[in-house]
């Protein structure tokens, strides 16, 4: 009997302790309200060049708050692509096409929560994608912790040039969870997790695989599920400079396992300049059904080098200059960024000479950004 009473007492104390901890974490929520994203406009010219592919175009973003409760964002993005990639030059003919993407989203703030609802549609001659998303972020623990969760649903229509009877579809689901934590007055970290699921036509109607040296249409599974987790640490180094460290692990049911690591450094120069630099390393293992040249007949076979074993290393820099600033009214910046990336494939050969394939790519962005 005495033992029972003592055990009950212990449980009561443990419950009180747990309640105190939980109260400390959640009880302070509500002391302040989350802010809407600031009003912003961006006008961007982007360019990609690498592996025989050139893509360029403008992109625009405008965000404006209404009644201090809702913020609306509109985006327009153009990709004009001329493709003479290794796949195209060895098995097809170079082509040009343009993709147009329109996006509209609304942010709504209620107490310490921000709710974002977004719609996006992307059109190119042989591919249409429609996407809807819902994201919620909630500040807790006196604003030191931000919890986020979200969902994306996308539906694509896949067509093929010169074959009007070809018509297929693909569906995508994404579920994400995130947590951003202020660690000290100078450091913060974030953890993001995302589960991805796809079904439908997940191949390319143009790409061919090789089986016993002969070209055959690629055969890709119609389902795929993946998981990604990313850790990020950002720190103020105390001399008007900052650093960030990132790591992401990804794996999926096609047996692709990928690691991404990035380290970056940012620094102000004078009153008007901000420079960023980063180094990024990416490596992945190939999909189960990937083969450069299959030596047996299998249900699925692909020679999509995106599913092969490869790595890449990228070095990037960005420079921002304050063109004009009127405190309390607006702030206008001119930005330029450049990234050089080197791809090395481990099991994808260049059919022209039999050597392992590799290429370098460059990304350039020049844009104006304004807050008002």
């Amino acid at each position, binding site marked *: 009997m005495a033992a029972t009473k003592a055990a009950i007492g212990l449980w009561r104390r443990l419950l009180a302790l747990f309640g105190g901890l939980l109260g400390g974490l959640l009880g302070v929520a509500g002391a302040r309200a989350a802010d809407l994203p600031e009003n912003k406009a961006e006008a961007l010219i982007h360019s990609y060049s690498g592996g025989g592919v050139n893509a360029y175009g403008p992109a625009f973003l405008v965000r404006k708050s209404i009644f201090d409760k809702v913020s609306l964002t509109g985006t327009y993005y153009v*990709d004009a692509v001329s493709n003479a990639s290794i796949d195209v030059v060895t098995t097809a003919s170079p082509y040009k096409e343009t993709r147009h993407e329109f996006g509209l989203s609304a942010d709504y703030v209620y107490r310490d929560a921000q709710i974002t609802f977004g719609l996006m549609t992307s059109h*190119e001659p042989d591919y249409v994608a429609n996407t809807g998303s819902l994201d919620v972020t909630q500040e807790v623990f006196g604003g030191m912790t931000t919890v986020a969760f979200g969902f994306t649903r996308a539906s694509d229509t896949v067509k093929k040039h010169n074959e009007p009877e070809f018509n297929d579809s693909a569906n*995508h689901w994404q579920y994400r969870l995130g947590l951003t934590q202020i660690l000290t007055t100078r450091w913060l970290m974030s953890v993001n997790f995302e589960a991805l699921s796809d079904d439908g036509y997940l191949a390319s109607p143009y790409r061919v695989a090789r089986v016993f040296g002969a070209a055959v249409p690629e055969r890709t599974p119609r389902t795929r599920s993946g998981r990604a987790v990313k850790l990020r640490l950002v720190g103020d180094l105390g001399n008007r400079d900052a650093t960030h460290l990132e790591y992401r692990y990804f794996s999926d049911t096609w047996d692709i396992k990928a690691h991404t690591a990035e380290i970056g450094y940012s*620094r102000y120069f004078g009153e008007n300049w901000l420079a960023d630099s980063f180094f990024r390393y990416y490596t992945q293992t190939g999909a189960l059904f990937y083969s450069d040249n299959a030596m047996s007949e299998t249900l699925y076979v692909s020679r999509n080098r*995106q599913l092969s074993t490869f790595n890449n290393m990228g070095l990037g820099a960005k420079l921002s200059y304050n063109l004009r600033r009127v405190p309390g009214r607006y702030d206008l910046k001119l930005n330029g960024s450049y990234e050089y990336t080197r791809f090395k494939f481990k099991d994808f050969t260049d059919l022209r000479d039999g050597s392992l394939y590799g290429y370098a790519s460059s990304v350039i962005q020049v844009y104006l950004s304004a807050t008002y």
Partner: protein
Amino acid sequence: MTAGRTLAVAAALAASLLGGCAMPTFPTIQPWVKPYERERLADPIMKLSRDALADKHFEHVRDVREGARGATGFQGGGCGCN
């Protein structure tokens, strides 16, 4: 002594020991970085993403060339641009 009885005695001993001793007082966790101490964290240099459009473009370039996706905080756009 049966195994059940041994366990009961052990539980009673542990409970009376813990119950008899003063429980350590755990302080309630409070936010240790006050709002007025977050000036450095609010600087644009500390933002996870400063310019949404530019970051989204970089993400798109990677999404169509790498096998991995997700956990980046950006929405991908459907496209077969390989």
